[in-house]
C-alpha cells in the first residue's frame, strides 16, 4: 500500500520534472514569436526554422560536418550568434520590403521562408535524424544531478531550466531597463509616433529579430542535446507548439509566452502520462483552446484597440 503511494508520488514528481523541462523549452521559442509580434505585429512562422538552424549549426560544429570541429562552448556561442544574424537577415531580406504592405503579404512570406529554410536544411544535412557525437558533449550533462528514489533529474534538465530562467531574466532587464528595450516598447505602442520621436525603427526591429532568433537558437541547441536528435522538420512541430504557447499567454506579452510555454509543456506531459499518449498533443491544444475561449486575448494579452 505504502509502496503504491510512493510509486504514485514519484510518478507525479518525475512527470512534473519532465513537464517543466519541456515547458521551459517551449517558453524559450515562444518568446521569440511574441517579441517580433509585439514590435511589428508579424507572426514570424520561420522562427521554428531558426531554432532548427541552431540545433544543426551546433551539431555541425561539434561533429566536424563542415570539415572542422570546435570545442563545446565555442560551438554553442558561434551557433547562437549565427542564428541571431540569420534572424536579422531574414527580416532585411523577407519582411522589411513588405513593412507597408498588407499584413497578409508578410504572413505568407513568413510561411514561404519557413518552407525555404526547411528545404535548405534538407539539402545541406539530409532528412535523417542526426545525433551529436558522444565525445563532443561534456559527459556531465547526461549524468543524474539528483536522484530521489525513482525520481531522476539529469544535469541537462538542470541546465535547460536554469538557462531558460537566466535568459528570461536577462530579457526582462533588456526590455525594461535599456535604451533599446525602451525603443522596442515604444514601437510596439505606436510605430509612427516612435519614429517621429527619433527612434530608428529598422534598427530596433533588427535588434528584436536578433534577440528573438538568438533565444530560438539556444532552444534549438538545448533540444538537440536533450533528445540527441537533430532533423530538418524539428522546427515545424516545435514552432507550432511555441506559437500556441505564445497565443495562450497572449501574443505580444513576454511573461505570457513564458507562462504559456510552461502550461503547454505540463499539459502535454500530464496528458500523455495520465490520460493517453495518443492524445498528448490534443490535450495540450485543448487547454489552449479553453483559455482562448474564456479570455480571447490570452492570459496576459492587451486589449488592442481596433485600428480599422
Amino acid at each position, binding site marked *: 500500500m505504502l509502496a503504491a503511494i510512493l510509486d504514485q508520488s514519484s510518478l507525479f514528481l518525475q512527470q512534473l520534472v519532465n513537464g517543466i523541462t519541456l515547458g521551459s523549452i517551449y517558453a524559450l521559442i515562444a518568446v521569440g514569436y511574441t517579441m517580433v509580434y509585439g514590435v511589428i505585429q508579424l507572426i514570424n512562422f520561420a522562427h521554428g526554422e531558426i531554432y532548427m538552424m541552431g540545433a544543426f549549426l551546433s551539431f555541425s560544429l561539434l561533429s566536424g560536418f563542415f570539415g572542422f570541429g570546435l570545442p563545446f562552448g565555442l560551438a554553442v556561442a558561434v551557433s547562437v550568434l549565427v542564428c541571431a544574424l540569420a534572424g536579422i537577415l531574414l527580416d532585411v531580406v523577407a519582411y522589411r520590403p513588405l513593412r507597408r504592405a498588407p499584413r497578409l503579404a508578410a504572413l505568407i512570406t513568413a510561411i514561404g521562408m519557413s518552407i525555404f529554410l526547411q528545404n535548405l536544411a534538407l539539402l545541406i544535412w539530409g532528412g*535523417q535524424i542526426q545525433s551529436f557525437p558522444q565525445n563532443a558533449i561534456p559527459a556531465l550533462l547526461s549524468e543524474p544531478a539528483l536522484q530521489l528514489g*525513482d525520481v531522476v533529474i539529469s544535469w541537462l534538465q538542470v541546465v535547460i531550466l536554469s538557462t531558460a530562467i537566466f535568459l528570461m531574466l536577462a530579457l526582462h532587464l533588456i526590455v525594461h531597463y535599456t535604451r533599446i528595450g525602451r525603443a522596442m516598447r515604444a514601437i510596439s505602442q505606436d510605430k509612427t509616433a516612435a519614429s517621429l520621436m527619433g527612434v530608428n525603427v529598422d534598427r530596433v526591429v533588427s535588434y528584436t529579430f536578433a534577440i528573438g532568433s538568438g533565444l530560438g537558437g539556444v532552444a534549438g541547441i538545448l533540444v538537440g542535446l536533450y533528445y*540527441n536528435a537533430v532533423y530538418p522538420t524539428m522546427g515545424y512541430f516545435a514552432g507550432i507548439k511555441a506559437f500556441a504557447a505564445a497565443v495562450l499567454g497572449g501574443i505580444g506579452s513576454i511573461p505570457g509566452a513564458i507562462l504559456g510555454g510552461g502550461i503547454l509543456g505540463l499539459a502535454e506531459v500530464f496528458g500523455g502520462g495520465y490520460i493517453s499518449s495518443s492524445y498528448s498533443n490534443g490535450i495540450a491544444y485543448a487547454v489552449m483552446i479553453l483559455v482562448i475561449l474564456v479570455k480571447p486575448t490570452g492570459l496576459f494579452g492587451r486589449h488592442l484597440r481596433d485600428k480599422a
Partner: protein
Amino acid sequence: MMIVAGFFLTSFFLVSVVIAETIKIPVASPFTGPLASFGEGVKNGALLKAEEINAGGGINGKQIEIVLGDELCDPKEAAAVATRFASDPKVAIVVGHLCSSATLAALPIYKEAGLPAITPASTNPEIGKSSPYYFRNVYKDDFQGDFLARYAKKVRNFKKIAIFYEVNDYAMGLKDAFVSQAKKVGLRIIGAESYMSETIDFNAQLTKFKMMRPDAIFIPGYAPQATLLISQARSLGMKCAFFGADGLDDAIMLKNPDADGLFVTTPFLVDRGGAMVKEFVGRYQRKFSIEPNWFAANTYDAVGLAVAAITAAGLDREKVRAYLAGISSEEKAFQGITGATYFDENGDCLKAAFVKVVKDGKWVSAEEQLQ
C-alpha cells in the same frame, strides 16, 4: 547549323533506341528522408543483382535497368510513385515498397492496373490477402510477432512486458500479433503506449512504465524513434531490456551506446547462410564498402524473382503474375540467398526468423535461436 541539329537529332534517336532496348524494373522505397538508410540497402541489393544479370547477358539479350521510385515511406508519395509505374506500359513488375503503410497505399493502384508487384520488406498481414497481384519474399508480422512473444518467454524468460508502438500499419499489425501470442504463452503485457512518427519526447510514457517495472520494453516501430526512446529510458534510470522487430534493424542503433543488449528479429543473418550468402556478402562489400542488411538481401532475391518471371513470361503483366503464382510449392521454389521462396495462395511466403543483438556497437547473432 543544320548539321549540328541533325547530329543532335540522331544522337537523341540513338539514346532512345538504347533505352527501348532495356527492360525496366522499377524499385520503390524510401531513398531520402528519415528511413533512407533502409532504402539504401534496397537500392544496393537491386543494383547488385541487376549488374550480375547484365554481366551475364541480361534477359534474352536485353539489359535490365533499375528505375528507382522514392516515396519517403509516405503513403501519399507511394501512391504517386505507384501511379507513375502503373501507367508505364513497358513495366511488367514492380519491386517494392518497403514500409507496410506505403505498400498498402500502392496496392489498390497496382491491382487496378493489373500490375504484379513483389515487396521484399513489407510485413503487414493484410497485404497478401488484399490483392492477387501482390507477392512478398519476407515473412508476415503475425509470424514475426508470434515468434517474438515465444522467444521473449521461452529463451529470455521475461514475465512483464511494456509496449511502445508507432501508429502505422506495420507496427500495429506486429503489436496485435505479439499481444495475442503473449496471452497464449503466459507473458504479461502491463501496458501499451502509442506514438506518431514525428514524436521525439517519450519521457511522459516512459515514466509511467518505469513505475510498473517491466522486464522488457517491446518497440514495434522504426529505428529513428526507437533509438531516442531507448536513450530517454536509460537517462530516466530504467534498466529493463529492449527488443523489437526488423524495423529496428538499422545501423543507427549501433551508434547509440544505450542500445547495447537490444535484440531484434531479422529475416537474414550473414553467419547463418551457406556458400551462396558468403559470395553475395563479399561482392556486396567490395561494391558498396558496407555489410549488407536484410533489406539488401531480400531485395536482391526479389529482383531475382522479377527477372525469373520476365525471362519466363515476357513483359505481359498477366503472364508474369501467373508465373509468380505458379511458384507454389517447395519443389518449384526460387532458390536465393535468403533461402527457398515459394508463395501460398495469397502470395505470402514462409521464411525463418533469426534473432540478433547489439553488442559493443556491432550486430551479433543471438547465442540462442528459436526454431
